[in-house]
């Protein structure tokens, strides 16, 4: 066979990569259960079915700032912001306040009323009301450090499914089975009983559930129920004003805009229906709630909704968070007017041991360790190689305890594995080519549960971020690990560290927290080396260059900075980039860069990755200008070799792989690409209540 030697002799091109394309990471996001939007801080809190909480910063490109891992027993049914404080209530009957700085529950209070279906705070932020299974609405006083039970409102027969405070704080409307009750918040007496019609036909015998309710300042009550209705009531007289039948199934969620001129209702069909408070004729004062728009962005139940000033935020069973801008509120054809779907976390769940060729997949309740396959062939670009040895699942490690895994790391040599939950930290030694595992039992006391973990390149040290932006450094030795010290940022840093990056030479460690602060520590002295000037957007990924010791930071607004740790200033290239500005298409991408790495063979290369592409930034090439085509790989491929120079620019973007959860460069110069196609996720979802059929 003459072909093989010929191919072997072919000079491997600079831009040619062998790619391990992996699709066996069965990451399955959990369904969205509840949402709360804080207009003051522009943060969206989102609760998933597994009890995990996520905080999105809507003012910073919808970046997923914080993730609070789930807990087995915690089923969050409702969320509520009280100023900057976040409370949840769930079917376990407890009210929980969260510590958003340490990403864990602060305390829980049992309401003693059975499962809690709903929670609401009055507009003054002084009283929390929860609706319980036993038919009581319980009031809790919000104190500085805790909440205290105050009293019960009149107990009703049947459970309280939903409730809403009147903005004045004097009345509460509560949705129940077959009816709505209005309570006087001061006396606790039920003043009105509004009977909600059951569905027609066969469902006549079935109780109707008032899933969601909203009490407006003009004493209008809006309710949505399991018979598919959105009803508008006069809250003062207790009369029904209007009924809108919007679906055959349940209307599960409601959300009203701040100015009470628009409301959205989410249905089991996956549609979100907007109503607006309009007058039928101009200049008339008699306004009415008119059904205006229908959005269909979900395949399954819309369980949670938030109506921000400019957009409708929805989420549900299909696990995606959708931000649908209202086109009458935003300027058309801008970044703000584009619909956004958040399907995957904005952080990496995959860790790649570059030297060993081993991958660590993090799931909420277990870890998986895989060894990559091998092939010995050579092939032309665009083709695939015969797989000589397939990938191999080495270990599946189940977590201990009820808390879900919040972070994990694998050492580059593949010899150490660490993970942490909010309550415990565990370190394992992997032996015999990662096949056998044993727990390191003697851990230093200072190694507490961490927000983020990272091993040094030589696998000799472990860095674990801890409270107040500090980082614990531990030397890894057998049989005992030794505490080396704690890296502390300046006084006053309270936000958790969400990014850790150690330099190849073991000299530097960079940390980034959600206050957008990036600190660099000198590991020899275990002291703060410098702080990168704070940029207004949160860092989403960063890494230190192995040879030049430049720190590359990418932010949620897609900006890229390169900071010289030696000179303590932005590098020449970074300044040039800022001066010229990034290409508009680059800035319009709607998923953050989640990983930065470098090409050891070419120090001018920076490899960055988001959900839909990875990009090799070649600093030696000119930056793309506004007139250049940003995604130019197809064009370049079609051009003859000499012409490519004319058309190429510094951003080599590969869109061959989609839904990328990890792109990493192994030591042997092959790329590891972990994909999780959305279709695979959708196929694991339960069947939707209604499927679109042709001509229906």
């Amino acid at each position: 066979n003459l072909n093989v030697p010929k191919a072997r002799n072919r000079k491997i091109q600079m831009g040619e990569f062998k790619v391990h394309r992996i699709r066996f990471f069965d990451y399955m996001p959990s369904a969205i259960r509840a949402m709360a939007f804080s207009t003051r801080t522009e943060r969206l809190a989102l609760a998933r079915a597994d009890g995990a909480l996520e905080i999105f910063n809507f003012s910073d490109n919808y970046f997923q700032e914080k993730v609070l891992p789930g807990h087995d027993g915690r089923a969050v049914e409702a969320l509520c912001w009280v100023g900057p404080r976040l409370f949840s209530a769930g079917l376990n009957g407890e009210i929980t306040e969260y510590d958003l700085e340490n990403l864990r529950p602060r305390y829980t209070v049992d309401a003693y009323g059975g499962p809690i279906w709903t929670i609401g705070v009055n507009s003054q932020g002084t009283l929390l009301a929860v609706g319980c299974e036993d038919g009581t609405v319980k009031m809790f006083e919000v104190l500085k450090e805790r909440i205290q039970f105050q009293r019960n409102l009149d107990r009703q027969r049947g459970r309280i499914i939903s409730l809403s405070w009147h903005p004045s704080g004097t009345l509460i409307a509560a949705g129940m089975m077959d009816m709505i009750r209005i309570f006087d918040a001061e006396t606790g007496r039920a003043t009105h009983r509004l009977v909600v019609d059951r569905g027609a036909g066969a469902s006549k015998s079935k109780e109707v559930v008032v899933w969601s309710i909203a009490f407006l300042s003009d004493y209008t009550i809006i309710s949505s129920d399991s018979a598919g209705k959105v009803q508008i009531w006069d809250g003062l007289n207790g009369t029904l004003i209007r009924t809108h039948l919007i679906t055959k199934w349940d209307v599960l969620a409601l959300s009203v805009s701040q100015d009470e001129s628009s409301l959205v209702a989410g249905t089991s069909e996956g549609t979100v229906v907007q109503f607006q408070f309009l007058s039928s004729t101009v200049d008339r004062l008699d306004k009415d709630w008119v059904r205006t728009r229908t959005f269909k962005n979900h395949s399954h139940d819309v369980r949670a909704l938030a109506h921000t000033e400019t957009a409708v935020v929805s989420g549900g069973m299909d696990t995606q968070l959708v931000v649908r801008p209202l086109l009458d509120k935003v300027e058309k054809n801008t970044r703000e007017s584009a619909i956004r779907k958040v399907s995957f976390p904005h952080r990496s769940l995959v860790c790649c041991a570059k030297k060993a060729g081993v991958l660590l997949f993090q799931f909420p309740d277990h870890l998986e360790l895989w060894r990559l396959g091998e092939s010995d062939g050579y092939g032309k670009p665009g083709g695939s190689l015969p797989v000589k040895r397939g990938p191999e699942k080495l270990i599946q490690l189940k977590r201990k305890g009820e808390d879900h895994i919040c972070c994990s790391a694998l050492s580059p040599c593949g010899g150490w594995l660490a993970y942490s939950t909010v309550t415990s930290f565990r370190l394992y030694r992997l032996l015999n080519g990662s096949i056998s595992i044993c727990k390191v039992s003697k851990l230093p006391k200072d190694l507490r549960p961490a927000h983020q973990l990272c091993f040094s390149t030589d696998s000799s040290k472990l860095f674990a971020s801890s409270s107040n932006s500090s980082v614990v450094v531990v030397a890894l030795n057998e049989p005992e690990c030794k505490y080396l010290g704690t890296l502390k940022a300046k006084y006053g840093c309270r936000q958790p560290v969400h990014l850790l990056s150690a330099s190849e030479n073991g000299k530097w460690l960079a940390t980034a927290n959600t206050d957008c602060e990036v600190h660099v520590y000198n590991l020899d002295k275990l002291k703060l080396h410098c702080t990168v000037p704070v940029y207004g957007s949160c860092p989403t990924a960063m890494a230190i260059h192995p040879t030049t010791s430049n720190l590359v930071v990418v932010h949620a607004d897609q900006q890229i900075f390169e900071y010289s740790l030696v000179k303590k200033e932005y590098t020449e290239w970074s300044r040039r980039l800022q001066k010229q500005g990034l290409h508009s298409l680059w800035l319009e991408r709607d998923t953050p860069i989640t990983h930065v790495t470098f090409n050891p063979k070419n120090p001018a290369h920076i490899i960055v990755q988001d959900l839909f592409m990875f990009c090799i930034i070649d600093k030696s090439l000119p930056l793309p200008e506004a007139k250049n085509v940003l995604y130019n790989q197809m064009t370049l491929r079609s051009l003859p070799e000499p012409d490519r120079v004319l058309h190429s620019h510094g951003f080599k973007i590969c869109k061959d792989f989609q839904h990328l959860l990890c792109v990493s460069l192994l030591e042997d110069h092959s790329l590891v690409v972990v994909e999780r196609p959305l279709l695979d996720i959708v196929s694991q979802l339960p069947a939707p209540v209604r499927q679109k059929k042709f001509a229906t």
Partner: protein
Amino acid sequence: MAALYAGYTLRGLAPAQNRPNSGIQGVEAERDSDHVVVTDSTRCVTLYKVSDQKPLSCWTVKQGHTLTGAAVYNARTQEYVAVSDRKVIRIWKEDDIILDKAFKATVSSDVWRVHCVAGGDPVVLFHRGAVRLLDSLLSAPQQPIEEVLSPEEAISWSTNIVTESQQFVIFTTEQKGDHFLYLQRLNPNSLQRYHLEREEPGLSPLSFSVSYRDKHIRLLYLYPNGHVYESVVSVRAPVPEEGAQALPLPRSLLLSLPVGEGLLQAASAQELDEAHVAVVGVPHPSAGSGKDFLCIWNTNFQTLQAGKEMAGKIYGQLWSFWNKLFIPHGKTFSVIPYDCPKSSLASALGKQRQVKKDESKAPTSVPSWNTLLHEEKAHPSRTAETRKTRTNRKSQSAQSLTNDQVLELIKTAPVEEVQREVQLLLSRTDTQDLQTSVGQLASTLASRSLNDPAFYTPSSLVQLVHTRYLCHSVCPDLVLLALERKDYFLCQLCLQFFPDIPEVVTCACLKVFISMSDVDAAKVNLEPDSVFFMEALIAQEHEAGLNGFSLADEEDRSDNLAEGGATAQRDNEKASAAEQMCPVGLHKAVLLNEILQTAYFDSFLLPHLKDLSSQDVVLFLQYLQFVYLKFSHDACKPTQGLRSPSLTQVMDWMGLLLDAHFTVLVMTPDVKDLLLNLHRFVKSQVRFVSELGKIEGSLQELDKMALKRDVGQYSIEIIELF
């Protein structure tokens, strides 16, 4: 939806059968929404309580006197003001019983009307255009009144409105078929004059109505051809100097009402609100051609919202006060309440006219340096301006003529000057304005050229066609004119750019083109792109031979496929050699291509095609066959980017020609070969396509296989980044 409610009669009309007018001179609002003052055309003023349908008081002037202006009610002083015998102003109160005993004042000039609206002072408008406040006039009744209008100019309609800050008297005049709008501001006084654009010659507006909204005065006027225009004038427009030239008043067509047979005679349009117009004397679109209807139209959506048949003769009079329409018709004077709820739909759909847009539309008369420096000098002699001074001024100020002036010029000026002016006008005017003026220019040019054999301006016409604002219906003479003057370049452009050339004209072009001699055609200058395309097509015939892809092979095969086609090989070769040659010259082919690409409807085209002579048909068929063969060879696909006829167009024309002349062609012996060839070729094509159809399934399978590159759970791939 707007609605008209059941009306009721306010009073009867004097039974004068063949009088053209209704006998009502004016209706004015009184103290509240339930009172109106009606002035009849002779001597009587009556105050009505509308809801009771009953007169409260009636005042009459003595026999021998007549009321010449409708009485108005001055709400401030609670007095009535009327004019009798053109010069006598009468003022009285409600409790005055005998009019002749009330206050009277005789003024020195004829009064047109007295106007008074709520919130404003009474104003007197004189026949010659002067305006006085009533109070100041009465302080010195015999004061001299200046003449504002020129001697031939006469007021046709007037009104008075009050804005937040100012009072306006608005009136329109007519002078030798031109209509002008005057906007007289009071306190401080200033006068603006606008020239209404001409509608079709001889048509004068039937009615005017004015409203004030968003700092703009909107004038709505109806022409006998059913067009309702709106013109917007900003109340804040800077005041030009006194006596300045009439500004052109831009207009927008709000509605084009159905007029039925003939023009409208007595009709009136009243603006009810920003979206609704009430029209009387116009036929209902779904009720024949009777013109005795009162309709409310929505101007945002151009829809008829309500209609009502009015019994009896319509006098073209219509007033509206406080949601009531007042209409004299037949022998009655009716009141019809209406309601126009403002729909949110228009604003939701973006149909509401936006204020901003209007603002830019409103004519602004910013004084330009040119005007200040040069116009002043030119001004005094404007009427008697000679062409010489005009050209002088133009060379001084580089200012070119307005649209109307150019139109005038075209009628008389020599060719060179017309060409120059048209070019200037086209280069100056922005595209928005062009749309309306290009059609006028072209038709004026064409009509002069048709009448005057010595006059022809090819370059101007080409420029006008190039603007792409022309179409055949705008200027129906143009194509025929071009044919007549043998301006084939213009013909080509028209065929290219006009989407609406009628089949008869297309055929006329075809006839001329096909019968033109190649020598003549070669002299014609044509659009280069189309020539390139044809050159390429003809050049390919040689290549085809070189590639060894000769038609003979094709025929051979087709014969074999046809099984038993025993035609002599020789004949085939001869025929195919002839087919390989383009039967017409290059330029002629280019022109024919244009014909092929025009739009047509076959049943309209067929009768005209029959007029072609059989030689022409044969030649055209040969040409079509040539193009068809060229296109069928895959080597000669229609070139991308260049305008070229498509294969289907060629096929369709071939079919049409054969349909039109089949019997003649079958009878003509020398066409037999051609027809046989065509038949054979088409048969082979059909066969080829059917063979393709057979393998379609397999091809689709291939397609599916290519897509189905499943990646699986794990693969190792090679990628290259450049």
